[in-house]
């Protein structure tokens, strides 16, 4: 039975179409793509996403400007919901669509970037054997991500959370015959799965105390300090920490895994084995910010637990700095971008961590969401640009690049815009969102603020290191023979996104997205901006000094910082640590003994039972000696034995 359909607004079906259209693409291409519609699969999928994107924009327009507000506050609207799986009274997985500022914003971001990537891939992956499969996976991912962002129920979110994980797995492993891609996709899935374990247990705890899985009810119950649910959740404690905090920390672990925060970030750089447009979509703009989105979605509950928020903030800032340091040393351009993504997500996360709930306190929240939005644009742009470069040069390594500005003019310009945006140079988008984050951090916690400041400088440095290494540096080698920039399909998304990256900062974001639904005044302090901008510029110029022309200054510096450089270059040996834990400890100390135990002890016992029976059987064969007189002896012994036993012993 299809539960309760409640069409709050007429747009219900249109809204439903937003995620379902990509799903349709997935199904059609998955079932028939290989043979029947191989040629037109790209166009087909792209047009579906186009419609989906249009509907998202339409929805966003409608929500933000027409029906979303009630008495000046953006409402949480659930136009569609039905019970999918009932566990017990009140606790059920409901599939539904929840419209509120952040989900509407995410709808726009996801469909937009997805559309860009769809278009871009038309050219990027032209002629690939598994072209339809690629598009069907993209469809699956888009569907799942849309389902995730509109989830009205925490379990629904978990469901789509898993689904995006698997789409990511499938897309990373798209080049299935490369061992490194296979390893990467497995790693991505398993690391995020490990984090999801935390998410799952967090859900279990939350649902137990709140008695519901529905976001709205859950938030309501766990944020009102007088409800019995809240009281029991805070009163119950394990190891001195309240159940609520445990739940939130566990949920945050899930988010951290998906968002590649320290120390669960190891999968993200490897995930760059996937096709570059996929990295743009999944591993830069959308899926990896799911963790941020999750914390934002549950933010009211997080704000009830100071320790949990504290953890969010610290993990965020550590990740930001950590990733930025590594990014400075990497030579694979996609890896640099990957670490940069991690670093930026760290920014968003600590912004949430330092935020309070409601009014001015909620600046961090708005800032995080804002940064999420702008980051999606410029990071997608960066990846797509990098994709164009890779497409052109067939290599990911910086050393193979240089002087490409002549060959790839459009890419060059758009890449530059994106670099400026991420480095926080005004008036590009990143500047505004980063300013807000720094402001929020400044208001809350000085340590975090200073680290964030340094990190933003580092950001500028490594981005421009990248930029100069690709487009300037050594005037390289003739690439004339190669094809051009990839044609219209690849350039269109770059241009569109660069417009976004340049201009998105002027959106009055606080009017739309805030922690409590009320518009938040964005206060712009120009004095405050001096330090970040100066640091950013310093970073840029350092990079320029080191990398614009071919020289060995960078090597010299690397030598002089040998210890730190080596650490960062080897990503602080986190991978090795994990390898040690999994291979040496889990495999050797758990898996192998378990298998051994099973084979020898458990199975051995069973076999021993059988063998000992046969053994006894062999041993007692002597009774049947074939001598009739011995038989008579046993006979009489039996008589006498029975007589003694029953007359004297067992009376």
């Amino acid at each position: 039975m299809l539960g309760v359909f409640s069409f709050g607004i007429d747009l219900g079906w249109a809204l439903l179409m937003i995620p379902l259209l990509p799903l349709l693409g997935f199904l059609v291409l998955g079932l028939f793509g290989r043979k029947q519609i191989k040629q037109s699969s790209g166009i087909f999928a792209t047009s579906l996403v186009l419609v989906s994107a249009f509907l998202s924009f339409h929805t966003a327009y409608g929500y933000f400007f027409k029906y979303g507000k009630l008495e000046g506050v953006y409402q949480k609207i659930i136009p569609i919901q039905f019970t999918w799986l009932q566990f017990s009274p009140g606790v059920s997985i409901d599939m539904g669509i929840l419209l509120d500022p952040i989900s509407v914003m995410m709808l726009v971001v996801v469909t937009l970037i997805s559309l860009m990537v769809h278009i871009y891939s038309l050219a990027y992956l032209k002629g690939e054997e598994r072209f339809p499969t690629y598009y069907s996976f993209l469809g699956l991912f888009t569907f799942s991500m849309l389902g995730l962002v509109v989830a009205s129920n925490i379990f629904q979110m978990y469901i789509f959370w898993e689904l995006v994980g698997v789409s990511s797995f499938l897309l990373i492993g798209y080049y299935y015959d490369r061992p490194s891609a296979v390893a990467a996709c497995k790693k991505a899935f398993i690391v995020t799965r490990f984090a999801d374990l935390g998410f799952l247990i967090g859900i279990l705890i939350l649902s137990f105390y709140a008695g519901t899985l529905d976001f709205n009810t859950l938030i309501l119950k766990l944020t009102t300090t007088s409800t019995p649910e809240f009281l029991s959740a805070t009163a119950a404690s394990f190891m001195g920490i309240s159940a609520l905090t445990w739940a939130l920390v566990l949920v945050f672990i899930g988010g951290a895994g998906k968002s590649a925060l320290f120390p669960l970030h190891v999968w993200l750089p490897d995930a760059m084995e996937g096709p570059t447009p996929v990295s743009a979509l999944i591993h830069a703009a959308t899926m990896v910010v799911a963790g941020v989105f999750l914390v934002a979605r549950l933010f009211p509950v997080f704000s009830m637990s100071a320790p949990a928020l504290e953890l969010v903030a610290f993990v965020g800032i550590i990740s930001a700095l950590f990733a930025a340091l590594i990014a400075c040393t990497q030579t694979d351009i996609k890896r640099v971008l990957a670490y940069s993504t991690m670093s930026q997500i760290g920014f968003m996360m600590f912004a949430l961590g330092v935020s309070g709930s409601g009014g001015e306190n909620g600046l961090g929240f708005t800032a995080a969401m804002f940064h999420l939005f702008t980051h999606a644009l410029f990071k997608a742009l960066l990846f797509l640009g990098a994709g164009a470069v890779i497409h052109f040069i067939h290599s990911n390594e910086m050393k193979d690049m240089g002087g490409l500005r002549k060959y790839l003019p459009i890419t060059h310009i758009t890449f530059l815009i994106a670099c400026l945006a991420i480095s926080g140079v005004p008036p590009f988008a990143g500047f505004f969102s980063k300013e807000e984050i720094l402001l929020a951090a400044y208001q809350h916690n000085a340590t975090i603020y200073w680290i964030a400041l340094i990190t933003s400088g580092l950001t500028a440095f490594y981005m421009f290191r990248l930029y100069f290494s690709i487009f300037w540096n050594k005037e390289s080698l003739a690439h004339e023979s190669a094809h051009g920039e990839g044609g219209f399909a690849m350039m269109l998304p770059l241009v569109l996104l660069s417009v976004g990256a340049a201009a998105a900062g002027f959106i009055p974001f606080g009017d739309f997205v805030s922690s409590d639904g009320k518009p938040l005044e964005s206060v712009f302090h120009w004095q405050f901006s001096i330090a970040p901008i100066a640091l950013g510029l310093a970073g840029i110029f350092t990079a320029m000094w080191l990398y614009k022309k071919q020289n060995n200054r960078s090597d010299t510096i690397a030598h002089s910082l040998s210890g730190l450089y080596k650490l960062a270059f080897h990503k602080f040996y986190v991978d090795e640590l994990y390898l040690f834990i999994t291979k040496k400890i889990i495999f050797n100390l758990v898996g192998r003994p378990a298998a051994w135990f099973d084979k020898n002890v458990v199975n051995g016992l069973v076999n021993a039972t059988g063998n000992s029976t046969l053994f006894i059987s062999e041993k007692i064969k002597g009774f049947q000696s074939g001598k009739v007189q011995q038989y008579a002896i046993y006979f009489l012994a039996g008589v006498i034995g029975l007589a003694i036993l029953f007359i004297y012993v067992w009376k």
Partner: protein
Amino acid sequence: MMEPGLYHVLIISTALFFIGVFGFLTRRNLITMLMSIELVLNSVNINFIAFNKYAWPNKLDGLFFSIFVIAIAAAEAAVAIAIIINLYRSHQSIDVENAADLKF
């Protein structure tokens, strides 16, 4: 001179029984083993007669029984001897130890 009573007779019959059993267990010759069985049966006969005489003089069951036992023993011996003869034909021996091929 004491009149022999039931117990005396029973002791004799029991002794006879065990002598028979002992003979059965120790003799190699099949005929001798058969004869030992006859001893066992005779000890039973003595038992029956004795019980009849001393314990239940009014009931003749014991007497009849012993007659039947004698008859049956004869029949059994006849069949047994036939079998032993046949065994001798095939084994060229009536030593019980030689007829122990079937075992385990």
